[in-house]
């Protein structure tokens, strides 16, 4: 059947025999792609009287939007915070490898580092599609620094632009900043960052609930790896965890929270409590470190050494966890298994929710018509079999 060329000469691909994640359900529908975007086949039929040029049989598998990882420190030997060598190449290398885990967009994360590292990384123009940076630190709490090196922690002198620019250089490429709101003068910084469209995340913090709520009122909308590097939930002061059910969130706003669902950083029961309390805000993150994808042994993270043992990564010589080496697809499977949630919910926690968090759900994280055709083909065990970016297959098992 000839394809009508009235609107575009570009070839149209129709993925058939698949279940696609649409309107929060897996539906037996075909997926149509043209020029790197999801195409509306009804419009194609009636407006253009067009057809598909190629049909791809997906063998009854699942098609989901590509995963989005908003917290990943590196992998496969690359450490984003090290900033040695060719930064662009490092990011590109990791970007390529994590396609195997179904991740089609991510935020390279920089842990607490000296200003010159920030300036150096920021000066590099990352031309890859939709990859902006997550700055985790240095405005965090000393007691809750986790694996972050203490000598590079900073406080706000006056808050506001001056402190941020002095530390980070510029903020053009930045998607998220993690900070501790109990630090003096943080309010101005939070307002400044969120005013620029940067997601402010609360983490590595000793804040109590009212400090956290104030931060949310100033514009914070994310919690970095919930439960980790913050005060534990207490029934008379729930701390940052209390944001999940707080009644002082401004109307129309939602607080999202990152969860490292690797089975190590969060006990399954805690994961379930968070999920049940606030399912719509759950964002799966890997917080993967340099060693992800590498064999066991000693590796570097930021300005420190870490030690890999099996699926655990510790700050060398301690029992402090130093980020995870789980992959995003493992996190999705683990989350589904321990929470008993639906397949759709598990997939959305890694795609739709991070896209909503970053304010890009009109382009990414969904299979709605007109969005970018970044998607993955999975089997019923939620193992990634193929990955597509802009409608092109970029990896297959």
């Amino acid at each position: 059947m000839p394809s009508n060329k009235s609107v575009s000469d570009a070839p149209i691909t129709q993925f058939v025999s698949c279940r696609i994640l649409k309107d929060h359900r897996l539906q037996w529908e075909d997926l149509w792609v043209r020029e790197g975007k999801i195409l509306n086949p009804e419009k194609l039929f009636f407006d253009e009287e067009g057809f598909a040029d190629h049909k791809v049989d997906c063998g009854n598998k699942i098609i989901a939007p590509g995963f989005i990882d908003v917290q990943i420190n590196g992998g496969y030997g690359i450490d984003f915070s090290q900033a040695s060598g060719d930064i662009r190449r490092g990011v590109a290398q990791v970007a390529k490898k994590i396609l195997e885990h179904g991740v089609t967009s991510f935020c390279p994360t920089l842990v607490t580092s000296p200003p010159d590292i920030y300036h150096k990384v920021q000066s590099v123009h990352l031309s890859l599609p939709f990859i902006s940076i997550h700055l985790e630190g240095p405005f965090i709490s000393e007691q809750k620094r986790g694996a972050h090196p203490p000598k590079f922690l900073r406080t706000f002198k006056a808050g506001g632009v001056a402190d941020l620019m002095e530390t980070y250089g510029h903020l053009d490429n930045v998607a998220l900043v993690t900070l501790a709101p109990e630090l003096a003068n943080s309010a101005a910084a939070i307002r400044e960052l969120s005013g620029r469209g940067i997601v402010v995340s609360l983490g590595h913090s000793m804040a109590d609930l009212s400090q956290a709520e104030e931060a949310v009122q100033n514009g914070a909308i994310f919690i970095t790896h919930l439960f980790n590097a913050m005060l534990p939930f207490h029934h008379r002061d729930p701390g940052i965890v209390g944001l999940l059910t707080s009644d002082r969130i401004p109307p129309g706003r939602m607080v999202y929270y990152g969860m490292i669902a690797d089975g190590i950083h969060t006990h399954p029961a805690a994961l379930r409590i968070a999920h049940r309390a606030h399912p719509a805000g759950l964002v799966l993150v890997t917080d993967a470190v340099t060693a992800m994808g590498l064999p066991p042994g000693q590796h570097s993270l930021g300005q420190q050494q870490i030690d890999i043992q099996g699926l655990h990564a510790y700050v060398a010589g301690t029992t402090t966890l130093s980020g995870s080496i789980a992959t995003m697809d493992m996190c999705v499977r683990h989350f589904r298994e321990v929470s008993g949630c639906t397949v759709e919910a598990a997939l959305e926690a890694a795609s739709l929710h991070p896209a909503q968090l970053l304010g890009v759900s009109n382009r990414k994280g969904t299979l709605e018509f007109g969005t970018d055709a970044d998607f993955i083909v999975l089997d019923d065990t939620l193992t990634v079999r193929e990955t597509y970016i802009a409608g092109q297959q970029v990896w297959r098992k």
Partner: protein
Amino acid sequence: MRLVILDDYDLASEWAAKYIRNRIVQFKPTADRYFTLGLPTGSTPLGCYRKLIEYHKNGDLSFKYVKTFNMDEYVGLPRDHPESYHSYMWNNFFKHIDIEPQNTHILDGNASDLQAECAAFEQQITAAGGIELFVGGIGPDGHIAFNEPGSSLVSRTRVKTLAKDTIVANARFFGNDLSKVPTMTLTVGVGTVMDAREVMILITGAHKAFALYKAIEEGVNHMWTVSAFQQHPRTIFVCDEDATLELRVKTVKYFKGTISTKILSSNFFSTLIIIKNMLLEHQISIFE
């Protein structure tokens, strides 16, 4: 007229779908000789469409050389509105089969000149060689397409204002908000459907029973526009048991082919008695 009565909705849908399939297959359509099919919307034909899709997926039926003409479309409703008949046809039929988009014809309720759109539709039907088989449904008020009670029985494709009953009936598709229901449609006329070489009407459910009764047991009447097909040379009414609830038992038995000779003979004698009584009443005797 042929009245085909099946036990339930699913069997009626299947019978109708098989009939359509067989007609197309036996016609042997080609690129030079398309099979033209008129199609309805609404809840009644959904089962039939599902079966047709099944036959297509089994490889028994291709729509490559079939041209379709839908009966109607709302005026002023965006084409991609989930309740538009374009959406209905795409979701329930077209997207599952191998029909070519340029061979489908649905009236455009957003055309700038609605009269011209209707005239063009009539011309498209003529250009396609007329409709081979027009499949339709019936409204509870006996309407075919949107030819509401009072529509001319020789009408052509035109703009129609909907009856209050129809608007209320449609409200369930628009969140029960009467203000959101379209009030005008473009519809083929009764005359347009009468021009088809064959007409098949699907009627299922008890709520359609009275309309079926009016359509086939009473006279041709513009208040029950489906009754016009009493004057079409080749019509089939396909229904389920529930739709026959207002018909005479005699009618149903006749069409089910279940009238036995015993009944026929008792009919004969009872008819004689009636005539005798009539004659007695009028002081006429022929048996003297």
